[in-house]
C-alpha cells in the first residue's frame, strides 16, 4: 500500500484498503476558520441539536485567518460566533484574533503549533488543507456539511484515492524554488490532472527541501485537483514535529513497489523559474519568456508564499536595491512576522532590507488579498492591475477585481519583478 492508503486503512480499522473503496475514517484533527467555521457550527447544531457536544474537544482546531483586519461587520460577527461556540464547548485550540493567541493563516500555523503529526488524518474546511501532507499526514479539504458531520461523529466517509507518484531527483539550480517545481508539475498535468488522486512526492530533490518548501509543494496539490498531497516523513520531519508537540505519533511509509496509478519523473537540475499566467494555475510559462509583461503590483504572502523562507528568498533579491512598483508583504503568521525581525542577512534584518527597498508598510498576518475578501482588505485589487503574486490561485477576480491579471510566481521571481517593474527571471538580476 501507499502511505495514503496505509493511513486511511489504519484510521478506518481495516488491514487493507484499495483505491475506490468507500470507508469511514477517523478524524485526527478537524481544522476550521472564520469563513467556514460558523456554517459548520450551524450544521452541527441543526443536525445534532443545540445541546450536542463535539466528538472530542482536543481534536478541533479553530484558526481564524481570512477576514481579520477589516471593518466588515459580518466578518466580526462570524468571529463572535466562533468565540461563543468555543466557550460553550470548552475547546482548547482556538486562536482568537482579539488576543495574544492569534496566529494568522491556518495552514502555516497548524504545523507551527504542532497540530500536524505524521501518520494522522486531518480534515479542514479549506481546500489548501492538503498542505499538511508535507509532514506525512493524510490531509484534505472538505465542505461545511462534512465538517459538521465530523464535529458530531469524529468520522467521515472517504473514497480511497489512487496515487500519482512524482519522483523529483537532481540538484536544485540556484533561484529555482519549490514553487517553481509545483508550477511545473501543474503546468504539465493540468488543473484537473490529479482530480480525486493523491499526489505523492519523493526523490532526492524532495529530500533536500526544507519543511517549509515541502509545504509549498503539497499546498498546491489541490490546484491540480488532488485530494491530498503527501511526502514521506524523514529525520527532518520528525525533528520538526517533536520540537512542537509532546503528543506521540506513529509515522507510516509507502511499501517499496506499492501500486500507483502513474509515476512521473523529473530531473530538477533542468528546470527554470516559471510563472502561471492568468487565469489558471496550469498556464505555465518560463519567467524569462514573459519579460514583456509590465507589472503594477507585487504580492508576497499567503499559505503558499508567505512563510519565513519565502521572505528570505525575497530579501536575498531585494537587498540593497529599490522596488519599482507597489510591493505588498503579508507574513502568514505572527511567528513569520517575528522572523522578519530576528532573521538577518549580513547583519540586516529582513524587515530592514524590505523597508530600505521601499515596500509598502508590512501588513499584519492574515490571508489578506490572497482571496480578495471584503472591500477594505489589504492589497485587494480594484481595477486593471497586473499582479505578480506568491499565492496559489490566479482565477478571474481571485484578488478582488475581475479585471486584474494575476501571475503566480516564486518569491525570487516576485521580488525580481518588483525591482524591474516587469516579469523578471531572478537569475537575470541576481
Amino acid at each position: 500500500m501507499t502511505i495514503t492508503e496505509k493511513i486511511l486503512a489504519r484510521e478506518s480499522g481495516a488491514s487493507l484498503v484499495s483505491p475506490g473503496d468507500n470507508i469511514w475514517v477517523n478524524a485526527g484533527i478537524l481544522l476550521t476558520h472564520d469563513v467556514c467555521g460558523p456554517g459548520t457550527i450551524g450544521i452541527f447544531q441543526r443536525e445534532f441539536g443545540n445541546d450536542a457536544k463535539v466528538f472530542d474537544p482536543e481534536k478541533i482546531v479553530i484558526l481564524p485567518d481570512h477576514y481579520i483586519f477589516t471593518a466588515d461587520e459580518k466578518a466580526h460577527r462570524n468571529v463572535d460566533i466562533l468565540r461563543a461556540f468555543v466557550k460553550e464547548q470548552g475547546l482548547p485550540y482556538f486562536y482568537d484574533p482579539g488576543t495574544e493567541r492569534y496566529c494568522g493563516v491556518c495552514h502555516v500555523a497548524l504545523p507551527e503549533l504542532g497540530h500536524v503529526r505524521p501518520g494522522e488524518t486531518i480534515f479542514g474546511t479549506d481546500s489548501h488543507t492538503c498542505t499538511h501532507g508535507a509532514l506525512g499526514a493524510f490531509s484534505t479539504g472538505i465542505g461545511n456539511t462534512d465538517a459538521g458531520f465530523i464535529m458530531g461523529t469524529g468520522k467521515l466517509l472517504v473514497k480511497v484515492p489512487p496515487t500519482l507518484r512524482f519522483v523529483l531527483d537532481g540538484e536544485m539550480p540556484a533561484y529555482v524554488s519549490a514553487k517553481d517545481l509545483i508550477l511545473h508539475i501543474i503546468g504539465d498535468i493540468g488543473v484537473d490532472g490529479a482530480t480525486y488522486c493523491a499526489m505523492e512526492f519523493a526523490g532526492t530533490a524532495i529530500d533536500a527541501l526544507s519543511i517549509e518548501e515541502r509545504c509549498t509543494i503539497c499546498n498546491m496539490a489541490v490546484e491540480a485537483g488532488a485530494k491530498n498531497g503527501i511526502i514521506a516523513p524523514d529525520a527532518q520531519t520528525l525533528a520538526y514535529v517533536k520540537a512542537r508537540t509532546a503528543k506521540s505519533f506513529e509515522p507510516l511509509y509507502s511499501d517499496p513497489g506499492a501500486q500507483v496509478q502513474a509515476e512521473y519523473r523529473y530531473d530538477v537540475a533542468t528546470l527554470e523559474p516559471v510563472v502561471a499566467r492568468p487565469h489558471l494555475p496550469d498556464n505555465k510559462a518560463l519567467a524569462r519568456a514573459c519579460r514583456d509583461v509590465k507589472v503594477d503590483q507585487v504580492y508576497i504572502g499567503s499559505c503558499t508564499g508567505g512563510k519565513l523562507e519565502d521572505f528570505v528568498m525575497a530579501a536575498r533579491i531585494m537587498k540593497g536595491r529599490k522596488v519599482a512598483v507597489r510591493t505588498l508583504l503579508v507574513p502568514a503568521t505572527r511567528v513569520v512576522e517575528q522572523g522578519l525581525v530576528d532573521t538577518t542577512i549580513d547583519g540586516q534584518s529582513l524587515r530592514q532590507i524590505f523597508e530600505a527597498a521601499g515596500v509598502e508598510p508590512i501588513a499584519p498576518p492574515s490571508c489578506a488579498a490572497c482571496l480578495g475578501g471584503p472591500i477594505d482588505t489589504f492589497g485587494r485589487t480594484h481595477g486593471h492591475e497586473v499582479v505578480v503574486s506568491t499565492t496559489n490561485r490566479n482565477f478571474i477576480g481571485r484578488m478582488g477585481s475581475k479585471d486584474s491579471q494575476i501571475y503566480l510566481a516564486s518569491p525570487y521571481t516576485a521580488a525580481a519583478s518588483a525591482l524591474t517593474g516587469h516579469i523578471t527571471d531572478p537569475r537575470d538580476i541576481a
Partner: protein
Amino acid sequence: MPKDTLIRGPVYVLEDNIDTDLLIPACYLNLVPTIPEEYRKLGSYALAGLPDSFPKFASNPDGTTPFPIVIGGRNFGCGSSREHAPIALGAAGAKAVVAESYARIFFRNSVATGEIFPLESQTRLCEAFKTGDEAEIDMTSNTLTRLADGAVFPLKPIGAVAPVIAAGGMFAYAREIGMIKK
C-alpha cells in the same frame, strides 16, 4: 429531491474550469449559509464572479434564477472548498449542473448538502447549447433533452454516491444506514 425527478426549464451555459471564485466571489463569504436570510442572499450572488460579458444568472426580481439547469465543461467547481458554491446555486433555485467532469470538493459538497444534482454528461455540451435553450433532464433514463428539436444527450449514471443523493445528503444517508441517530 427524489432521484426520479424531471427537471425542466431554460439552461445557463458556461465553459471549462468554472472555479469557485466565479461561482461565489470571496467578498460574499462573510454570509453564513445556515442563517436563512443569508442563505437567500448567497443565492442572489450565485455566479456573480463571472465576467460582465455573461448574462446575470440570478436575474429574477426576488434574487432567484430563471435557469434551473447549469451546463458546464470540464473540471466544474475547481478551487476552494467553500460549500457556499453549490449552496449559492441551490439557493438561487438551480436544480442541477450538467458538466463533463467536476472538481472533487465541489462534487462532494453538492452531494453532501443535497443542494444540487452534479450530473455528468457523456459528451461535451457547452457548444451544443446556448443560454436560454429549453431542456429537460430525466434522471431515470439519464438523459438531457433539448426541447426545441428533441435532441437527446446521454448522462453518466450517478454511480457510487447514488445512495447519498437518493437519501437527500450526507446526514440523511448516515441516519438511513444507522451511522448516526435518527
